[in-house]
């Protein structure tokens, strides 16, 4: 059993879930900020993104990935968005790249695929 975290958990958790693609394999990456200064850094960046103002579907393509991004601050969902791969540009791409880099780094959360 995992312990539901309260004050001991991370300040900020950023989760990226990639679904779809030709293979239809789901994969998840997560980055966490454990202290106030890195939390401020993540949120300063995340809050500047146009949440709620991206199309959730790509009407012209097939087999591209779908990204779901969820940002949790002290166990409360602060932002969430679903983006087709074609919309993953600019700041969105930068956010996902940062999460993947932290998750894939030694000591980061284990990247895992979910069938």
């Amino acid at each position, binding site marked *: 059993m995992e312990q539901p975290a309260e004050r001991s958990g991370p300040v900020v958790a950023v989760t990226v879930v990639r679904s779809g693609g*030709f*293979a*239809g394999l789901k994969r998840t990456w997560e980055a966490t900020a454990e202290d106030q200064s890195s939390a401020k850094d993540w949120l300063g960046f995340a809050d500047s993104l146009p949440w709620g103002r991206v199309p959730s*579907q790509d009407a012209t393509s097939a087999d591209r990935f779908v990204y779901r991004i969820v940002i*949790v601050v002290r166990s409360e969902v602060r932002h969430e968005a679903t983006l087709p791969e074609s919309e993953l540009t600019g700041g969105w791409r930068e956010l996902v790249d940062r999460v993947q880099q932290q998750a894939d780094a030694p*000591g980061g959360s284990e990247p895992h695929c979910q*069938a």
Partner: protein
Amino acid sequence: MMHSIVPPYLLQKIADADDTRMARASASARRALLARDSIQDARLLSTEKPPASRRESDSGEPGARQSAVGTSPGGGSRHSSEAAPAPTLDRTVYTARNTEQLPGSKVRSEGEAPSSDVTVDEAYDGLGATYRLYDEAFGRNSIDGRGLPLLATVHYGQDYDNAYWDGERMVFGDGDGEVFGRFTASVSVIGHELSHGVTQFTAALDYQGQSGALNESYSDVMGALVEQYQRQQTAGEASWLIGEGLFTPAVQGTALRSMIAPGTAYDDDVLGRDPQPADMANYVETTDDNGGVHLNSGIPNRAFALAAIEIGGFAWESAGQVWYDTITGTLAPDADFVAFADATIAAATARFGADSAKTKAVRAGWVKVGVLEDGAAS
């Protein structure tokens, strides 16, 4: 070091989730968040209508204009009152040189000698094999029925684990080398991608939910048939695998999907088990992947494979012809599994007769996977 971030209310949500895949994963905090989102989105989706038609191409090529919903079935090559243009195979392969810039630079045009790059040549040959199936088995001149040039870009992105159809061209990644190798390695993938183009120009099935899964399934059907036609295999001899050989040897699995036995293509320590359902009892409700279009496609895939094997012989001459007639017929863009099944029975009846063994086999396939009820009138 992992930290749990799951508040109790989220754990409660996941217990309530009716996505069985999610339920199995209920120990994971991240997955709990997802299940919760899936429920919310399912509600949203039920009140929102995705775009009904796809945008028109702005490429300026005369053949690249996409058909609106309701234009002539079959793409016009056999039904047009004008003289149909002679079949023309016109392939161009580009390389993105491991960037994400499309189309990239041209590396092989129609009639040119093989390159020194196996990926380029696999794409070129796969375009030709797909063109041949549509031309020789179904009398269709390219994906639009009017000789549209076939375009592919290979070496897209870095370690890119995917192949896709962007509305105008096929795009192939090289894979990351750990889980996936290059996506051109199986001709079934190339046939699949180009068939998304055929669907775009014909039934234009919405890429969401059941119509999206049918869009996916039609591409798998034709991807498998391109391979079977190339190998001159009967339905009984065929592997019915999609993407055979795409996984690296490190992965415990033979292919990405099995049409005859959905859910059995791989079972790997890291990737988990092939999540495709084989019948309606195991239909997956999710908002990921546009409503599980790559998962629930297993159900119509199996209906097709069962019918083709029951009929016997070359699948493109029987069940394949029926599926082609269906996608080029009067199907609605938001057709669900039952509407599609009924349309295949109508197409089989029109071509082979209501009491033919072929029509009966098509119906039996849909009954077996639980889309139609036994003895149901179509």
